[in-house]
């Protein structure tokens, strides 16, 4: 694949699916510094992945696979470096949208963030409507394992949402 072709594909993917990356960045990070770093890391990995894409899965599935793998690796290796950093005087590439965000969505992201890395990935895929088979293929675990985990996650989220409703937040 020539570089120009790679660049064109990368640009198309980014312009059409950057929202997908934003969701993963948001779910896997806590501070703006982290958001910025993970976003850059995912973008670099997506760029490298373009020549390897054979069209066996959809672009969305492919991007999810790359981005989630990167986010999981990043969480394990890199996150600790950012825990002590302050936010003052730092300029960031990513800026949170000024649009009014639904309180319930903020709550949902907070709950997703509390899950472990794999459950976080499964929750994102579940909310974006992936099948168990697709989730198993993306995460690299069996379909039955996906089923067990999803049932547990669903119950957990529903139970917490009821408490959330109860306190009227």
């Amino acid at each position, binding site marked *: 694949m020539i570089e120009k072709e790679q*660049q064109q594909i*990368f*640009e198309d993917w*980014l*312009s059409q699916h*950057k*929202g997908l990356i*934003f*969701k993963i*960045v*948001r779910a896997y990070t806590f501070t703006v510094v982290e*958001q*910025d770093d993970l*976003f850059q890391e995912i*973008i*670099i990995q997506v*760029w*490298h992945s373009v020549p390897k894409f054979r069209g066996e899965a959809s672009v969305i599935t492919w991007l999810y696979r790359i981005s989630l793998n990167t986010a999981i690796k990043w969480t394990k290796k890199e996150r600790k470096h950012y825990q002590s950093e302050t936010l003052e005087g730092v*300029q*960031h*590439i*990513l*800026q*949170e*949208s*000024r*649009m009014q*965000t*639904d309180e*319930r*969505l903020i709550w*949902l992201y907070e709950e997703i963030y509390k899950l472990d890395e794999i459950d976080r990935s499964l929750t994102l895929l579940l*909310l*974006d*409507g992936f099948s168990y088979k697709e989730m198993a293929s993306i995460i690299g675990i069996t379909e039955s394992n996906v089923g067990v985990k999803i049932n547990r996650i*669903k119950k957990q*989220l*529903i139970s917490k*949402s*009821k408490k*959330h*409703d109860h306190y009227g937040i």
Partner: protein
Amino acid sequence: MEFEELRKIWDAQNDQPLYAINEKAMYNLILSKKKQAHRITNISELLIIIVYIITGSFVLGMNLFDQSSNISMYVLCAWMLGSAFFMLVNRIRRINGDNQFDRSMSGDLDHAISVATYQVRISQIMLWNILPIGALTILSLWEGGKPIWIAMVVLLFFALSYYAGGWEHNIYKRKKRELEVLKNKLDNAG
């Protein structure tokens, strides 16, 4: 809330992006990457020129002092001084080309990519240059009737230099790739 409600809340965000890309911050990142690339380029160029001039002159001086008839040694010193000259010409051309880029964010990034491309090219040439220099050195040792173990030690030294050169070349390639990714991000931000 039931799960379907959670999904509806989730789906609603698809209509409004969570983030915007801060072009100013990206610009600063580009500038810092550019400065870093410039500093590394300057140091590597000067180092290569100085090392080739010193070693080439040293070999030439030794040959003249010993009134040696070892042809490989003369070829070797000519090759080294030629390499220093080649590097000097490339450095001058690079500095002259610095003003060809406009001061926009995109122009700055194009400039940084151009410097990175230059680094990748030069490091590749210098890597290949180890081969003729190594061959000429071994040849001159053989011509001078030196023991085989000296030739082996020299060969090992050149093998290590080649490995280190390859490692450096890969660093430059990775840095260039990062800049290209930034350029793509910038193109998509607009």
